[in-house]
């Protein structure tokens, strides 16, 4: 249970944010976090940001994603 994905905040309007991951942009509600800012990485579940991730944590997750694609060896 609990599909949650990391994404980076690109814009904030009130309690809503536009967050992005690999070009995919979605909305997330920030009301469960304090002090989240543009540029921050957050973990998003069912439309709500539930935790902030450090740059390092986000980088690790992106690396895991990239490793999968290197392995697939697809130059598209």
């Amino acid at each position: 249970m609990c599909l949650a994905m990391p994404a980076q905040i690109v814009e904030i309007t009130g309690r809503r944010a536009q967050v992005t991951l690999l070009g995919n942009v979605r909305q997330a509600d920030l009301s469960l976090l304090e002090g989240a800012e543009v540029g921050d990485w957050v973990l998003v579940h069912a439309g709500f940001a539930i935790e902030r991730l450090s740059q390092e944590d986000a980088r690790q997750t992106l690396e895991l994603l990239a490793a999968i694609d290197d392995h697939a060896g697809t130059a598209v």
Partner: protein
Amino acid sequence: MGENRIILAHGGGGALTRELIEDTLVPLLGGSPAGLSDGAAVPGVEGLVFTTDSFVVKPLFFRGGDIGSLSVHGTINDLAVCGAEPLALSMALIIEEGLDLGLLKRVIESAAAAARACGVRIITGDTKVVARGEADQLFITTAGIGRRLIQPDPRNLHEGDRVLLSGSIAEHGVAVMSDREGIAFETPVRSDSASVWPLVRALIDGGIEVHAMRDPTRGGLAACCVELAEDSGVGIILEEAAIPIRPEVRVACEALGLDPLTTANEGKFVAFVPDRDAVGAVEILRRIPGGRAAAIVGTVTRRRSVAVSLKTRWGAERVVDMPYGEDLPRIC
């Protein structure tokens, strides 16, 4: 629980669609199932292939395409995977009262441009208008006629054949789903709507022995492989690591709760060729626009208890079932 009504999943291109066709429609129509998928030979006329398809995509315009060009590509691709050179199309429109005329023109312009680019003419058609509320904006049905150059057959898979995929998967499904009302999900992923005829033609011209072909539309690569494996009485093992998928598509599928294997493609095809032809076939495809990401993604085996399985990156083997027929986004 038995079904006494049509449910959405009946139109999903998965198990329920197949059942509806085989258990209800075909017996009533008195024909054979092989004739109701992809294209059929025209009785009494040598070398002609005939096919039809309906398009009910929503929204009408999506990243990378629209219902007009889609309706042209879709039917051309059905002919192409039958090994037939597309010759001509018909186009029938069912239009909801109130549809903006400018929008209709854009759709038709797009269809015309697609047909021109594919070198195929739309030679006949029909137009109907129904009252507001009785059809969702616009439905299009196209039928196509082609000249058969080779004769691939879904029952012709041989043990040892390799499975070729012409390019990366799941793009059309993601592009269309992301525009659904209320999702507020923007993605750079564009539909791959395109004709695969140039790619198929190249294989034919290259002398590749093609045993079977199909376009993995509704139901995705999974439905395609399960149907062919069952028709031929063989097994198929797919290699997850070999299946081309763009990183942003993978992420979008995660976010939308889609399984890339069962997500629709509209510009790709799967071909089953003898092992000795496989590498050559991939090289041919990779030289052509639209085929740059072509890859060998699996192998045909003897029939096993499970028709189609997928070897995951970690070496586990997982069953690939006929998808139920409706993409149900997961949260959990």
